């Protein structure tokens, strides 16, 4: 089977497995509770419950030290079954009663078998009929939405799956680290490198263990799966925020098709990473927080009314848990999931909640709201932190990147000064390289939007800030002047007031334009075109001003929600520009642009919706007015396609050659477990670890570096494979290429490189120059060894850039791999 076909099959498998776990299974279990909800809420609820359940089941079996397949099945299926029984008790009880009665009638000869069977199958038949009926009704009534959404989803599958299907390899170095952690879970060790949010790892391990899927396979394709959920969450939140039915699709479209965002804003969606996994739960936080406000208000009004009518108890009897409490519960679940997946998502979730809270000011300060939210927040934090806390109490230290993340959020004084010197924020988390350092420098130097290099001070703060602060200082009362002096001077100035107002208005206008330009310049790098930043900033401000204005006119939650989105976007913009503004850097540039980009479709859809509400809402015939939004979405789509403004395929880091991944699969599948060793760089180490052994190229070569007749290098497995890059990768410099291009490399191996002294250890042993030397040495070693064993040392796989050799050993009489290959004396 070709790797392309295999990848597609694996994607379908993983998508199916994950969907069953987080959509189908929770829906079946909580079918009775979810029955009356709309499809959007059914989906969000299922996703939240499913993920929350799986993550915590995995935590439970690990913290109880029973991480076996059996206990996983038991802990997964049994509680779910009990919950299903409990939730669907009336139906189940009814079914068994009917079964008992039917069987009794059958044995008493009162009824035929066919009659009994008919009675027993009536319920499943009805269920099936209802399902199919509701499905087709839904499709009929929402055909256009589904058609547009499916079109966009298909594009996203193509866009984000292109790399995996055509290049097969991991695109980000982080993946190897995460794979290592998941592999350690296979060995019964969670938090192997220290305490870290393991939500993502738990899900991958669960899919691997529960369905028997290979970790390597899941990690290769899970990025696309999680991205589909991330995109769906944009749609679902917009369904909550927008009045129009079709503008949420516009939001998804804006994040899907047009080339609006910098490539770094969307590149990570190609890969299976914890941060992106956590993004699934970001917008559900907002969804349920907003829903809480709405429901709470409704409940309070109803309560007040019924109290006056003395019918309160009758009303309250119908609820075990109040709807607003349920919303808050799901808010806390989604919030805790963000923390379980990645700290950065929690930061963004806090910002989002903060924006919503500001929008709902002063309502939020009402004790009935405030304490509920505070309690929900505390509980969610507790539920997310508890497993990590337990592990910490069991003696596991925090993982290195946690300390790093904290140091970014709370930098020491010297560090913050150093950071603002324009070094960018490229760094390493464990083995996790954070791309973007080079781009950041470029972003800062090429400030073509009205600000030249010279306009920046050494601290990186633009002079416009200084100007603003100057003007600010002019208005600030001088501490040495007395209040009396000021009053005196004020009376003299009143006569010049009208003229001054006109001057001031002009000045303010100029300031706003100038400040906007300056602010937009800070956003450079966030979007694909510099001008876009300006427009997006203006759009944000417009939405903010409009929603605030409308809020004063009509105190509707709708405008509060719009304001919260504009505020959220503005805060993200400030966070993105924090370094340039001299503010504390909560998150590095590369990551913050991802969230800013993710917020942009919300902003545009809300802005469009506000226009729609103003212009079309007063009209009665919604179906006709919706044509405007459909037309807008379709026109924009058509224009994007006609003018070829489609987002180009993204980039891929030069970490591994496709041939290597092909060989990995082939070896894992065809060779007996633990009977083979692969001599290669570290890229494939974790992929191979599951089934075989790995030896590093540098270790292998070092052993025969000072070659003499007595040098011995043996590898004690029957099959030994040697991966050699004929065109060694340009590794370790954040070197990347378009997914459609060849991997960035240092050129064909050469004798010159092989003859040079290489380094055989250290963290940069496989970085560009040294990698070139090592791979060149390996290449000539292979040639020399093949001469001695022409039949035994065979080419197992070869393409233009990669070659894999295989040798089958007599395990009782191992080959001595040390040979004089001409460059090791």
């Amino acid at each position: 089977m070709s790797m392309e076909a295999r990848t597609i099959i694996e994607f379908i498998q993983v998508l199916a497995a994950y969907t069953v776990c987080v959509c189908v299974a929770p829906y079946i279990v909580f079918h009775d509770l979810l029955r009356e909800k709309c499809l959007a809420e059914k989906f969000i609820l299922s996703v939240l419950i499913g993920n929350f359940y799986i993550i915590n089941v995995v935590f439970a079996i690990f913290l109880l030290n029973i991480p076996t397949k059996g206990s996983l099945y038991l802990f997964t299926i049994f509680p779910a079954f009990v919950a299903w029984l409990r939730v669907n008790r009336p139906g189940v009880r009814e079914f068994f009663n009917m079964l008992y009665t039917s069987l009794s009638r059958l044995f008493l000869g009162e009824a035929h078998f066919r009659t009994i069977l008919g009675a027993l199958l009536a319920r499943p038949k009805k269920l099936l009929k209802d399902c199919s009926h509701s499905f087709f009704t839904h499709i009929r009534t929402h055909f256009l939405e589904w058609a547009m959404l499916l079109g966009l989803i298909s594009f996203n599958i193509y866009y984000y799956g292109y790399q995996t299907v055509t290049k097969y390899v991991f695109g980000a170095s982080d993946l190897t680290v995460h794979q290592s952690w998941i592999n350690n879970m296979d060995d019964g060790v969670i938090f192997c490198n220290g305490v870290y949010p393991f939500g993502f790892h738990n899900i991958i391990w669960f899919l691997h263990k529960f369905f028997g899927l290979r970790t390597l396979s899941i990690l290769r394709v899970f990025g696309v799966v999680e991205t589909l959920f991330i995109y769906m969450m944009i749609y679902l939140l917009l369904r909550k925020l927008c009045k129009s039915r079709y503008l949420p699709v516009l939001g998804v479209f804006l994040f899907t098709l047009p080339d609006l965002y910098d490539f770094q804003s969307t590149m990570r969606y190609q890969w299976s990473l914890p941060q992106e996994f956590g993004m699934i739960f970001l917008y559900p936080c907002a969804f349920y927080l907003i829903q809480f406000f709405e429901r709470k208000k409704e409940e309070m009004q109803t309560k007040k009314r019924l109290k006056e009518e003395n019918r309160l108890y009758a009303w309250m009897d119908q609820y075990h848990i109040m709807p607003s409490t349920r919303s808050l519960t799901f808010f806390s679940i989604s919030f805790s999931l963000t923390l379980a997946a990645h700290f950065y998502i929690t930061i963004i979730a806090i910002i989002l909640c903060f924006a919503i809270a500001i929008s709902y000011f002063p309502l939020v300060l009402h004790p009935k709201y405030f304490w509920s939210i505070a309690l929900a927040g505390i509980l969610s934090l507790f539920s997310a932190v508890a497993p990590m806390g337990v592990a910490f109490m069991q003696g596991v230290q925090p993982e290195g990147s946690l300390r790093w993340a904290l140091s970014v959020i709370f930098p020491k004084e010297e560090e913050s000064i150093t950071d603002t010197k324009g070094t960018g924020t490229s760094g390493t988390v464990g083995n996790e390289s954070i791309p973007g350092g080079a781009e950041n420098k470029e972003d800062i130097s090429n400030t073509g939007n009205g600000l030249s290099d010279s306009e920046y001070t050494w601290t990186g703060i633009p002079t416009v800030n200084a100007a603003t602060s100057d003007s600010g200082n002019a208005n600030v009362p001088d501490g040495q002047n007395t209040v009396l002096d000021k009053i005196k001077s004020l009376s003299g100035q009143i006569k010049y007031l009208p003229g001054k107002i006109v001057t001031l208005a002009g000045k303010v206008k100029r300031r706003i334009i100038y400040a906007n330009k300056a602010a937009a310049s800070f956003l450079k790098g966030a979007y694909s075109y510099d001008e876009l930043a300006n427009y997006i900033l203006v759009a944000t401000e417009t939405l903010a001003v409009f929603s605030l204005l409308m809020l004063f006119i009509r105190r509707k939650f709708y405008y509060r929600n719009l304001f919260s989105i504009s505020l959220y976007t503005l805060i993200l913009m400030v966070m993105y520009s924090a370094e340039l503004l001299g503010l504390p850097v909560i998150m590095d540039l590369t990551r913050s642009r991802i969230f800013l980009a993710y917020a942009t479709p919300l902003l545009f859809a809300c802005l469009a919706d506000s226009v729609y509400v103003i212009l079309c809402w007063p009209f009665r015939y919604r179906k006709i007015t919706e044509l405007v939004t459909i037309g807008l979405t379709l026109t924009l789509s058509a224009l994007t396609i006609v003018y070829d403004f489609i987002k180009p395929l993204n980039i891929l880091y030069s970490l591994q050659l496709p041939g290597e991944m092909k060989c990995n699969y082939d070896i894992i599948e065809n060779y007996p477990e633990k009977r083979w060793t692969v001599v290669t760089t570290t890229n494939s180490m974790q992929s191979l670890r599951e089934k075989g052994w790995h030896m590093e190229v540098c270790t292998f070569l070092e052993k025969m570096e000072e070659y003499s007749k007595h040098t011995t290098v043996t590898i004690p497995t029957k099959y030994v494979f040697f991966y050699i890059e004929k065109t060694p990768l340009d590794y370790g410099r954040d070197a990347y290429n378009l997914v459609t291009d060849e991997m960035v490399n240092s050129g064909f191996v050469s004798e010159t490189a092989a003859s040079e002294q290489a380094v055989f250890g250290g963290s940069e042993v496989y970085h560009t120059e040294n990698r070139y030397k090592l791979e060149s040495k390996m290449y000539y070693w292979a040639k020399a060894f093949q001469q001695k064993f022409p039949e035994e040392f065979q080419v197992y796989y070869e393409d233009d850039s990669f070659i894999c050799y295989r040798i089958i050993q007599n395990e009782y009489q191992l080959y001595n791999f040390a040979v004089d290959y001409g460059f090791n004396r």
Partner: protein
Amino acid sequence: MKISRSNFAAISVTMIAILILFQFSNLSAIYASQAMKNANALQDVSITVNKTVQASNLLSTSSYTTALVGSKSNQETIIAEEWCVYTKQPYYRFPSLDAFYGNISKNCKLLIVNSYVIDSSHDIDILEQTAKRGVNIILTSLPDISIFRSYPKLMELTGIRKIEADSYYTNGMTVFEGFLLGGKTTYTELKKSIPYFLLQSGTKTYISASIKHQERKHIKNEELPPVLWRNYYENGFVFSVNYDFFQDHTGLGMLTAMLSETNSYNIYPIVDAQSVICQNFPYLSNENSDRISQQYFYNSKAFCENVLWPDVVSILGATDDKFSGMIAPKLEYSSSAEIDQDVLSFYFKQTERITGELGISGEQMESRSFHKDKIMYDTKKFKQLAPDYTFTVFSPGSMPESAYEGYLKFYSKDSILSNIRTLILPKEYQHSPVLSFYNTKILSMSCISDGFSHTDGEDLYLRSIETALGYSAISLDFSRVLYPSGKSDDWTSLSRDMARYLDTYWKSFRKAFEQVNISQADQKVRKFFALDYHSHRRNNTISLSITNFDEEASFLLDLTDEKIVSVSGGTFIKAEKDKYVIHATKKNVAIEVTEDLSEN
């Protein structure tokens, strides 16, 4: 209850009919029996020596592919020469390396050298130059240690890094998987002092010695004394044999296995015949009855009929081996005991039933043998008792060649030996070849193993012959049973050994090779000698073209981590991993191979 007359009649008729039907098959078998005729005796021999490829056809001074360097009388050279005939290699024998290098053929691919011809740096230079030309070298034994010490280049040539000990007492040896047929085997009885070398990288060891207390001495497997290994030198492989395998035909299989190691594949003709020969059985007389009665409570005749025959038939039946019995009419020709017609008929008929074959044995158990008398007596008796039976197989046993050669070559056409086509010789009988023509018509085949014993040496010998020829003839000498000399000759233990050995050591070969009687083996050997072949490989297709093809031919294909996908022009059987028996049914055979990742 009464039975009516009509019912009674009907029942009686039915019973009679059933009786007749059952008896009919028996009676028809008796009437149709051809037991007193030899079904295997052909009118004439179709393949005589002049229709076969023999040494004389293969000797070539200019276009040889294999060069043998050594004296004519040297056992190693004789074995190598015999191997060249079996594998149809055009060859030439040179007395010295100088002579070889002076007349080196451009077709030469293999040089087989005796150790004693290497005694100067010039010889080593020649070996070095030969290896550089891409010719593979096999040293059938190693020169003295002093020569290695004197000429370090020889060490380099043979891949020896260091001489650990001039002589080291080894505790046995291990033949690794893939070299000889039969897989990895450790022999603990083959203890011997051999030079202890440490090998350098680029070498591959096929047989290594084991030593006592290896773990205690912290010696890795790779550092055990090598017995047979390969080194790559410049452009050729140099095989070194640090043992006396070439003192008998054990060397045959080694040569084949070493040749296979030089290429991605090796295809060569084999006999494809596995036979079991019961020497001196059936026994037709009743001599030594007192001794037999004392041990088994039967006289000799009854013992043979009631104990030996059923046992032999059941054991061979269990292993599906064909019965080939070498009749011993008498074992004491000085006695006056006569052969009974009934006994003779019994064995002939029983043999026919199990589709076995009968030959004549030349064995006698007297201190003074009456060879001429025996031949005369047997001739007379069989003319009398089985005049239509033509004996084509003769196993002389201890009878000297001088006693029977005349009968085979020149004498009376009325003798019992006058129609002999196949001569069964004991194992390593006077260093005679395993398979050869005794004269133009008679084929001589050697026994390979004793069915009542199986030592490590015998096992290695068997595996080697099986690898080289796909042939084995197991000899079961029943004179031991009829004339027991001690407890070890008791049939109880011998029958147990026989059953055990046949069912274990030959099992793997039975899967690959055909079980035949001696006459069938004779036919296969003649065809084997007659054919010649040529093979070449293009990508994954191995093409084989056979000349002098006669209905069928068998080959052994030795691959390297590959397996057969399909064969056109023949069929194939997997003998073991990488080794396949090809049965050609047409002159041209195409074999498709592909990579094989399986363990077995």
